[in-house]
């Protein structure tokens, strides 16, 4: 079964959530498509579109923090990176997402 309709639905809903947070989808169309595809697969497996780049711990309280878009749970970290961890979202002023490093919090001066 095609994942395209669900990917499009997630794009529609997520855009309305991340926009007011100051984020947009990555301009890297290939990366965006791949990540949304993974989220549709994860949603099919677990019932929830989790972040493709963070591990499920099978602890509901912790796993809730990696439900896409997980920006509110990691705001300081992602604001410092100008992207979310998986790179599906970037700050609205970002034009070259590939120039943004993927660094852990302690390497950008956070706990």
């Amino acid at each position, binding site marked *: 079964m095609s994942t395209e309709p669900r990917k499009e639905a997630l794009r529609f809903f997520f855009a309305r959530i991340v926009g007011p947070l100051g984020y947009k989808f990555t301009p890297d169309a290939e*990366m965006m498509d*791949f*990540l949304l595809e*993974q989220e549709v*697969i*994860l949603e099919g497996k677990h019932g929830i579109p989790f972040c*493709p*780049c*963070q*591990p*499920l*711990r099978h602890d509901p309280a912790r796993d809730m923090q990696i439900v896409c878009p997980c920006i509110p749970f990691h705001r300081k970290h992602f604001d410092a990176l100008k992207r979310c*961890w*998986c*790179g599906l979202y970037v700050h609205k002023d970002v034009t070259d997402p590939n120039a943004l*490093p*993927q*660094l*852990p919090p*302690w*390497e950008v001066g956070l706990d």
Partner: protein
Amino acid sequence: MKTVTMYALSTCPWCRKIKDLLTEHGVPFDFIDYDLADEATQKRIMEELDREGTSLFPFVRIDGIPVTGYQPDRILELLGL
């Protein structure tokens, strides 16, 4: 030859990029896709990552030195490449 191990997620493109990077440079490495591993292995990996203070992937260890995230320059530097 340096010992390179990696914890990855099969759904993570940055994990794939590191695997590609190591392969392109002919660096042998061991890896486990956390999401495809059995429950006991997942538990062991998380305990190890908790000790490192992280739960982010990709997680690479080069001769014991941990690198979290997609950091190709740092990885090549640690490998002396």
